[in-house]
Structures are given as C-alpha cells and as structure tokens.
C-alpha cells in the first residue's frame, strides 16, 4: 500500500517559493508511486485558478494542471474560495472545493504532512 503525502499550501503563487517547492515535492513523490494530496488553504487557493500568465517563474496553473494529470489530488478550502470571491468556473480541472472536515480526514490518513505557509 502506497504512502500518502499531504502538502498544506497557504501562500500565493508568486510572492513565495512555496509553490515551486510544493510542485517539486509532489512531482517526485508521484514518480515514486506515493499518493499525493495538496490542500490549498487561505491565499494558497490562488495557485489553482486557470490561465495564469506567469513567465520566468514556476507558473502555478501550468505546473499543477500537469501534476493533476499525473495523479495529484487537489483540495481547495471552500471557505477560502468564497472569502476571496473565486468562482468554480475559474478553478483548474480536477481541483475541487473542500472543507476543514476533509482536511482533518486527510491528516488522519497521511503518513507525511508538510506545511508550506508564511
């Protein structure tokens, strides 16, 4: 049975290196056959909106779209989405609204839990 790694990402995509770090950890863990979950909380939900145009830095929507295709699970804090006025139609495909209840379910089953915040 594969191990589960959960990454709690709570920062915006381009003010911190956390997005790059989360993506690299997720990519490596998926390649080793781990189940990988990114739970985006607070401003971290901004990593999972479509059609970001960033260049010269890890483009959040591009890198996470590719990782979702490779099996990355993405949970978006629903309260945080509403708080920021982020509509469902702007979410990346495969990144869905979630809840604190789901977060604590995930923490219970995770073998590794990584905080990437401020």
């Amino acid at each position, binding site marked *: 049975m594969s191990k589960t790694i959960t990454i709690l990402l709570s920062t915006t995509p381009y003010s911190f290196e956390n997005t790059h770090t989360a993506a690299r950890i997720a990519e490596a863990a998926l390649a080793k056959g781990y189940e990988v979950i990114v739970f985006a909380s607070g401003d971290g939900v901004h990593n999972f909106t479509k059609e970001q145009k960033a260049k010269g830095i890890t483009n959040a929507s591009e890198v996470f779209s590719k990782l979702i295709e490779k099996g990355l699970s993405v949970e978006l804090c629903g309260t945080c989405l509403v708080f920021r006025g982020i509509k469902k139609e702007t979410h990346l495909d495969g990144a869905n609204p979630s809840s604190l209840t789901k977060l604590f379910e995930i923490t*219970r089953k995770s073998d590794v*839990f990584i905080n990437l915040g401020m």
Partner: protein
Amino acid sequence: MSELCILVRTAPYSKINAAEAVRHINGAVANNVKTSVVFVDDGVYCLKDNQEMGDSGFTSISAAVGQIIEHKDEMLKIYMHKGSLNECGIGSERMLSGFEVVDDNGLARVVGSAKTLMIF
C-alpha cells in the same frame, strides 16, 4: 499524545496566520481531533487580553482564543511557551488565563508527540 499540534508563532493582525490558526483550532474541535495548541515566539501576543478592534473590521484574536479556552474539553490542550512570554515583556497579569505554561522541554514534548504539525 495528540493527533494534531497547532503551532502559533506569529502575532495577530500583521498576517492572517493567527486568524487561520483560530479557524483550524475550531475545525479540529468540531471534527473531534485530539489537538494541542502551542503559542510560541510572537504567537504569545495572541493571548494578550483585551485586544480592542474598534472599527478596524478585524476579529479580536484574544476574544476568539478566550472563547476557545472557555469551552475547551479533554480533546483540546492549550500551551504557552514561557521563554517567549518573557521575551515579549508582557506581564502574565495582562494575559488570558486557562492554559498551561511550558518551558523548552515542555514545548519539545508537546510538538514531538503529535502525529501532525500545522504551523501558523
């Protein structure tokens, strides 16, 4: 042993962290997660009593934490790091009450015994 340790190390208001910590503490309690909360470094400012928000629109973190302390049960333990309180220079008489004060060893024990660590 706690399932979850929530480490609060930032002061309220300059960042969202303290408010997010409060939200996650309440979420953990609501979901029956055995939780330890530790206020350390500038996080001890969250426990300063009588934070008056006026018309700023902010939520008073001390009021929110005070309510959590008032309603906590055996599933929730709250700690403050003694060394951090000493460094911030606020007398204990100006702080909330109803939590346990821990030294460095106590801090290490609480953090080290939890399965999951969330840092705010």
